[in-house]
């Protein structure tokens, strides 16, 4: 995708940062100019960082009265042309869902950093979890798509936040950084780059802002004040934004385009990493913090003579089903360790064909240890 290279506005070089601070710096590097938020553990450090830094860098910060207001303010800000974001955790994600559907339907770029904690409900506010995988995809009513990226390091808390902005601005969809408490509060070394590649939204004056002839097209996005007399509405609308709630075929085509503009670009969006996959017989499919333990377990398994490999999912949504099907051919089994009761496991099973899939779940508020994953691999032999 056409990216422009810009100087990284935050301090470059080797640094020691927390994951949440790195996500905030990633937002600033991506060109974020608006933050609207509400405090919630374990994401609040991102908001605190933005409250200190954003206005000094020409942006605006608002502490709202709740998460519903936060995401609403972010959508409003995005229509002024500002790259806009919020950060939250499970209960906040639940509250934001109606407006995330609004953002998807009105094709408004917004970035949400979800630093996941142990749910459901208030759960364990300070403990780690990964239970929002399905919530961020399916939480709002109706059919729509989002992008969700899963960082496994403080480095990626930075780089994937930049990427979330780029994908959100390019695709005009809500994009999530689907982080976890353990990564948000982890402090480790970051090699902060001198430059970053950023995507600035496309605007062609006079072009219709809500549709093209392409059934998977991404329309031009003007801003308030451009003189386009924009009509932004959460009702079914034509390509100029006029409310159009009659005509079943019209609504059907709109909902399908909003989905297809993401799904038809999966090859460009989806990223993963493979470790020891070439001759692997058992493949661990892991994401986020759990992938760290999984890599450690795979290396230990190799030393024990087990041909194990790691498939690390970086993009969770859209889900790369073809990748799973491709890897499934020729292996003896998948192992899917997760800090939830098997949310990605179900997806892997759906696309694994006849390859056996084993789920390793843990929802006790702590990270899954390499030893647990290694033990499961040994049982699969």
């Amino acid at each position: 995708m056409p990216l422009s290279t810009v100087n990284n506005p935050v301090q470059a070089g080797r640094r020691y940062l927390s994951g949440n601070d790195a996500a905030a710096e990633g937002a600033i590097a991506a060109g974020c100019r608006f933050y609207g938020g509400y405090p919630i553990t374990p994401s609040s450090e991102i908001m605190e960082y933005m409250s200190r830094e954003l206005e000094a860098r020409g942006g605006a910060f608002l502490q709202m009265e709740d998460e519903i207001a936060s995401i609403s303010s972010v959508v409003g800000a995005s229509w002024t042309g500002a790259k806009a974001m919020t950060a939250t955790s499970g209960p906040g994600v639940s509250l934001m869902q109606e407006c995330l559907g609004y953002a998807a339907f009105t094709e408004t770029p917004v970035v949400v950093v979800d630093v996941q904690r142990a749910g459901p409900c208030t759960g364990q506010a300070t403990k780690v979890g990964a239970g929002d995988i399905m919530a961020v995809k399916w939480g709002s009513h109706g059919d729509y798509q989002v992008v969700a990226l899963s960082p496994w390091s403080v480095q990626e808390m930075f780089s994937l936040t930049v990427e979330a902005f780029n994908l959100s601005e390019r695709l005009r969809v809500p994009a999530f950084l689907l982080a976890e408490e353990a990564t948000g509060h982890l402090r480790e070394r970051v090699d902060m780059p001198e430059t970053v590649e950023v995507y600035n939204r496309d605007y062609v004056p006079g072009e219709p802002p809500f549709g093209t002839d392409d059934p998977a097209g991404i329309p031009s996005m003007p801003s308030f004040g451009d003189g386009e007399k924009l009509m932004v509405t959460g009702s079914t609308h034509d390509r100029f934004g006029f409310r159009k709630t009659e005509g079943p075929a019209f609504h059907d085509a709109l909902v399908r385009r909003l989905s297809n503009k993401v799904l038809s670009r999966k090859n460009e969006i989806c990223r993963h990493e493979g470790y020891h996959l070439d001759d692997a017989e058992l493949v661990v499919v892991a994401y986020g913090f759990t992938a760290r333990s999984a890599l450690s377990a795979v290396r230990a398994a190799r030393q024990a003579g087990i041909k194990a490999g790691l498939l690390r999912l970086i993009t969770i949504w859209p889900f790369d089903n073809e990748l799973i099907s491709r890897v499934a051919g020729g292996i003896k089994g998948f192992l899917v360790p997760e800090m939830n009761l098997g949310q990605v496991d179900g997806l892997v099973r759906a696309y694994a064909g006849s390859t056996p899939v084993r789920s390793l779940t843990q929802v006790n508020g702590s990270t899954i240890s390499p030893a647990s994953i290694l033990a499961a691999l040994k049982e699969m032999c």
Partner: protein
Amino acid sequence: MARSMEKYLRPEVVTTPFCPGCGHGVLMGSLLRAIDQLGLDMDQTVFVSGIGCAAWIPSPNFAADTLHTLHGRAVAFASGVKKANPDLKVIVVSGDGDLASIGGNHLIHAARRNLDLTVICANNMIYGMTGGQMAPTTPQGHLTATSVKGNPYRPFDLSKLVKGAGAPYVARGAVVRPYELIGYLKKAIASEEFAFVEVMSPCPTQYGRRNKYDSPGAMYDRLGEMCANFSDADCPLPEGALPLGEF
């Protein structure tokens, strides 16, 4: 709508969305006159609305940037617009159910925060679009689809509520007194602080029929009798009067 105001409307819009006798058309005309008299640049003005009949006043009618949002959230969306681009004039137009019930928390916090927003609340004392259910502004004892024996609860006094939350400019007008209303709207829009205008606007379809008004005209007559401009009054308001004016 006077032809002189048509320049502010989208040419594609040829019909009114409002029921016969609805007060919102008068509010719409009053708002456009206020805008016209102020010489507001419509290309630098954003109209934000929520869900319900009153949210249709700007969207899709006004030839300006319009943001037709979720139920109750218009003020929160508008706060993001204004904070991200302070050069834009941001005007919220929505109803009492939208702004004061589901959106009540956003309304009082916006008043407290005192961003330069103009919030215009069309108060018809009922949920019109969804079929005439009880609103937080329905007078006690009045009949609605969800209070067929009479509303057992006390209504909000919206203007006092928003004033109490810290809004620097609050006024209550009524569509039966359009010239005063235009004056309040002009002051609110010209203000560079948070400004709230509550506009009493009859709903003959949902409210009038249930509460035994023979005609829209009878509702307007009654509203006219209830309206008393307290800022001009030298004596205490009569029983049951609806005080209009600047708070």
